[in-house]
């Protein structure tokens, strides 16, 4: 950008100086023609020289850094969505189990464990509270059938 700035300002300033010079010296004899040639050469040199030394590496590095920042922000969004998604599934599954437990008159606290897959399926459960053996069996069966939580992954703590 700095190179471009120098280039554009250089050309415009050269044009301004050349224009003022030609405006002051308006003679159409040999000296006037000579001045026009010198001014023309000066302008050509100002226009062409910086193009040869142009460096476009800055643009490339800028693009890479913006892509990195974009990736980081998008990753934050995915984490946020994932956290919300998992907490929603946990609370819904918990509510489902507690609702069924209430039918059997059991007062429980439930903690759900999700798997690491993208779908975050409930795979384990830790249940605290006193419950009759009949209700325990029935609830275990419901959790296995409706929620897909295997018996060996159902931990009961009295």
């Amino acid at each position, binding site marked *: 950008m700095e190179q471009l*700035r120098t280039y*554009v300002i250089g050309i415009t300033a050269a044009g301004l100086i050349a224009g*003022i010079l030609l405006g002051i010296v308006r003679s159409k004899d040999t000296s006037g023609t000579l001045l026009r040639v010198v001014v023309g050469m000066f302008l050509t040199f100002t226009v062409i020289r910086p193009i040869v030394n142009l460096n476009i590496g800055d643009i490339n590095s*800028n693009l890479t850094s913006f892509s990195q920042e974009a990736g980081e922000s998008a990753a934050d*969004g995915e984490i946020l969505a994932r956290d919300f*998604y998992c907490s*929603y*599934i946990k609370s819904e599954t918990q509510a489902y189990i507690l609702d069924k437990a209430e039918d059997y008159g059991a007062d429980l606290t439930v903690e759900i464990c999700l798997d690491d897959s993208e779908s975050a399926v409930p795979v384990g459960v830790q249940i605290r509270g006193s419950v009759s053996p009949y209700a325990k069996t029935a609830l275990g069966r419901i959790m296995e059938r*409706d929620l897909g939580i295997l018996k060996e992954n159902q931990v009961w703590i009295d």
Partner: protein
Amino acid sequence: MKRIVMLFFMILLTTIPVSAIELEAPVVPSSGRDLMPSEHESFTEGLLEVLTDALGYLQPDLKEASGICFCTIAAVMIVAVLQSFHGMSGNVTDLAGSILVATLLLRSTNSLIHLGMQTVGEISEYGKLLLPVMTTAMAAQGGVTAASALYAGTAFFDAVLTSLISKILTPMVYLFLSLAAACSAVGEEMLIKVKDAVKWAMTWTLKIILYVFTGYISITGVVSGTTDAAALKAAKLTISGVVPVVGGILSDASEAVLVSAGTVKNAMGVYGLLAVVSVWLGPFIRIGAHYLMIKLTAGVCGIIGSKRLSGLIRDFAGAMGFVLAMTGAVCLMLMVSTVCYMKGMV
């Protein structure tokens, strides 16, 4: 009535005790705080409030601009009277008149160019804070590819445009004014050509950047939007294959994420749009008032004054118009990008 109350309580019972996705739009910069509407949930109402408040800025600026224009018209009239006397050289009066008019207009033009640059910087800085949160919200809604592409594109074009404005276009505005003053004073044909070339280069630089940006947004919107939509569809298919009750819960969760992220994203988008407008509108009205008054002056001077002097005033109006275009371009770019985030593309 009884039924309505019952229905209300039944709806309350069905609500889910899960907090929404939490993200906040960056607070409006201090320069836009006066205009920022108190109500920013509805864009239309907020915009109306901003516009109503901003109109209050118009009167003092019009008064200031009128004073400058009055002095300029008086100066042009004096020069015209002097030129009518025999024995006064046209070149000398044009030279003196050009210096006088340029001096009269340069002070206010200079402060307005600074105001324009400050506004460009503030909008760009606000964009740097707004874009990441909008990207995060859009990615949370499932538009990961589209959000990344939008962020990278907008940040890049904004950086290019802001750098161009601060490092090249603003010095070029001053050079353009110098060339205009020199043209008016000397009347050299080559200077007029250089001045026109500078004006052409400034105008086309802005136009090209906006064209390329719009093209980029359109193409990446379609391409990345399709990719994200395919990914979401695949995720939904995976969910539907799970045990019935769990499948329902997973599907609800997925839907809740989309709705929650979408709500947050739109709220932030509306706030962001209003914040950008609040920062931009005050300076835009100030510069716009001066622009219109100088244009009017150029018209009046075209009737009473010399061609060169009225041309100089027209060029000052052109420079002012260009400052308006620069601030407008940066504002427009950020607004288009924010609207694209809000639209979602998924």
